[in-house]
């Protein structure tokens, strides 16, 4: 069979080649259909996994964003609060600062309020159980209320104070408290009975949990917040960005545009590529050995964390920046050169702006990686229990993924929801970061 024969054959008779192609068509289309199906299955599977992940995190984490409050009629007389009359008067007149009231016995006032609410409770252990209805952090809330308005002294106030985590979780769940059994919580029968009584009188209220966004870590789940880790992450990433972005972009530009092609630049290139594949904990060890033990930078501080993470981020940004620079059409470089632009002007006026979207994409991938990194930070002590919100890059701090790890490790049940909530905050942080990058990219792309 030859193709030439088709020229002489009558048009109605298909040539053998045409017949051959026709015979194979069905098989080719079937293969294409199969391949599309595989693609759809793959995307479906990954979407299903993503949905599972998000649903499980959100359903577990949502309760952490609400907090249960208990209504108490708190006596704020100076005897219960254990303040001497002169001080109280002086503060009310304004001759002494309100901070003088800091040492008052607010816990006593709360306990008095609880005893008044449940007058039948007697005996040491029962009373101790009763006091546990209210969070140990409630006294600080009360202190703030009184210090903000000293005229409240001597009055009785109906206040909403945070409950303990176990009671809070029980109420938040919205279950019928009279039916609750002790198996589902660590509370005993009596506590549940008190809670049911309070619930029946609408003395519980579930509100948005501002504590979670205001506080640092705490041993008490109802007092534990994400603020310290969030601020720590922000500082760490700021350092990472400020160090890695300029250094990486400068290296990429030099290697791509200026460096001569020789054995040394080849060596540098190979090393950069290898650096991207180094396990992140190795960078942690390096940070510990070099920055902390040799340069004596502060332990557990965002400055060290940032330096270590930028070492880790550098190769990612360099590699993607070089790819972005390489993809700028050579005609643009020639056009600029042809007009008499110097090499530096060619790069900074034309090549870099066009490569910027790609560079930003690489940067955001690198920073997202850095944001989720735990291992190297363990080595430099950023795994510490941090209660105070870091005020600067040299304060002790922790970061979001480490906070997730710490809470996941805590025994209290309420930390489970905190863990998921922290993951949600981490994801939100990531989304905000990506959104900023996308916006920047759009701005640069418009210049095409």
């Amino acid at each position, binding site marked *: 069979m030859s193709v030439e024969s088709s020229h002489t054959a009558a048009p109605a008779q298909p040539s053998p080649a045409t017949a051959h192609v026709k015979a194979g068509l069905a098989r080719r289309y079937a293969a294409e259909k199969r391949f599309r199906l595989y693609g759809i299955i793959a995307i479906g599977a990954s979407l299903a996994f993503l949905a599972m992940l998000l649903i499980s995190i959100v359903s577990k984490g949502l309760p952490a964003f609400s907090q249960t409050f208990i209504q108490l009629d708190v006596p704020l007389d100076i005897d219960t609060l254990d303040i001497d009359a002169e001080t109280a008067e002086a503060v009310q007149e304004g001759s002494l600062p309100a901070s003088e009231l800091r040492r008052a016995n607010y816990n006593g006032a709360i306990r008095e309020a609880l005893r008044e609410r449940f007058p039948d409770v007697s005996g040491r252990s029962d009373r101790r159980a009763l006091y546990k209805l209210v969070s140990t952090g409630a006294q600080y809330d009360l202190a703030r209320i009184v210090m903000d308005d000293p005229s409240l002294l001597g009055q009785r106030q109906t206040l909403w104070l945070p409950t303990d985590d176990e009671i809070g979780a029980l109420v938040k769940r919205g279950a019928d408290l009279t039916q609750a059994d002790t198996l589902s919580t660590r509370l005993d029968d009596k506590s549940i009975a008190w809670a049911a009584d309070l619930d029946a009188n609408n003395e519980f209220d579930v509100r948005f949990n501002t504590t979670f966004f205001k506080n640092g870590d705490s041993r008490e789940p109802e007092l534990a917040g994400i603020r310290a880790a969030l601020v720590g992450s922000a500082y760490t990433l700021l350092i990472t960005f400020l160090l890695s972005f300029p250094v990486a972009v400068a290296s990429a530009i030099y290697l791509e545009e200026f460096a*001569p*092609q020789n054995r040394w630049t080849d060596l540098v290139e190979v090393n950069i590529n290898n650096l991207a594949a180094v396990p992140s904990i190795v960078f942690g060890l390096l940070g510990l050995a070099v920055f902390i033990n040799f340069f004596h930078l502060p332990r557990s501080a965002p400055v060290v964390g940032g330096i270590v993470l930028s070492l880790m981020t550098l190769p990612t940004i360099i590699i993607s920046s070089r790819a972005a620079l390489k993809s700028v*059409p050579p*005609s*643009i*470089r*020639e*056009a*600029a*050169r*042809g*007009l*008499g*632009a*110097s090499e530096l*002007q060619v790069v900074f*006026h*034309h090549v870099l*702006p*066009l490569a910027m979207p790609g560079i930003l994409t690489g940067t955001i991938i690198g920073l997202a990686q850095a944001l989720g990194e735990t291992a190297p930070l363990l080595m430099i002590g950023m795994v510490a229990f941090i209660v105070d919100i870091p005020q600067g890059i040299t304060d002790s701090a922790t970061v979001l993924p480490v906070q997730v790890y710490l809470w996941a490790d805590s025994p209290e049940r309420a930390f489970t929801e905190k863990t998921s909530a922290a993951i949600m905050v981490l994801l939100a942080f990531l989304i905000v970061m990506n959104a900023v990058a996308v916006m920047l990219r759009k701005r640069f792309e418009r*210049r*095409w």
Partner: protein
Amino acid sequence: MNDILSPPVSRAGLHEEPTANTVLQEIKATVGTATVENPKMQARNVDVHYGEKQAIFDVSLDIGNNEVVAMIGPSGCGKSTFLRCLNRMNDSIPSCRVSGEMSLDGEDLYGPDLDPVLLRARVGMVFQKPNPFAKSIYDNVAYGPRIHGLAGNRGELDEIVTESLKRAGLFDEVKDRLDAPGTGLSGGQQQRLCIARTIAVSPEVILMDEPCSALDPIATARIEELIDELRQNYAIAIVTHSMQQAARVSQRTAYFHLGKLVEVNDTNSVFTNPQHELTENYITGRFG
């Protein structure tokens, strides 16, 4: 020197298909007149190597003031390479080596005193594919004057931009949208924008590397008109694949073949009375 006519080539083998070997043997020296009086640019015995491979063999050619020199020849014959050597655009190719003499107003192009940035400001270039910057039309034209500091203030810069666009025959089409991106123009407009950008720097020579190969006949005609007008003020060297274009726009034509300059003469004589057999074969469409 190649400024002497080589002995006339025998016409006996005219109808034989030339093979690579016979061709190489035949090109011994350039046929025709490679020099002009009072040249703007001069090239003498130029060899160009890309690594081991030699791309240009012993080419000598002058570009005179107020004339258009067309360079024609089959693909890969080295005409673009030669053109790019004239403003040292090949410097950015690490393996490229240029030997021989090239000069602009008697100044050695590859000499130690010559700055390539300054050279490119004096010898502008228009490329095969329109390559406007990813900036506005105004900024595209203003870029050259800006980096060289040619305009003292915004008013002067405006004047340079307007004047350049007018001379490139683009001003009337874009005067209402100077802020629009240069990449949004049509192919022919983009190429004229590139020409405007080149003349905004007030070069002395303009090199054009197949400026019309990506354009339709109407846009091509406009550019050719423009080249003819520009000739009044500049020396122009143009590489083209279209022999009609060479015949239309140029005063002198150089025919390159396999890295050698085969023939150079008045455009008229090259196309009506080619001296070399290879030139004749090429312009009559027998190969290339």
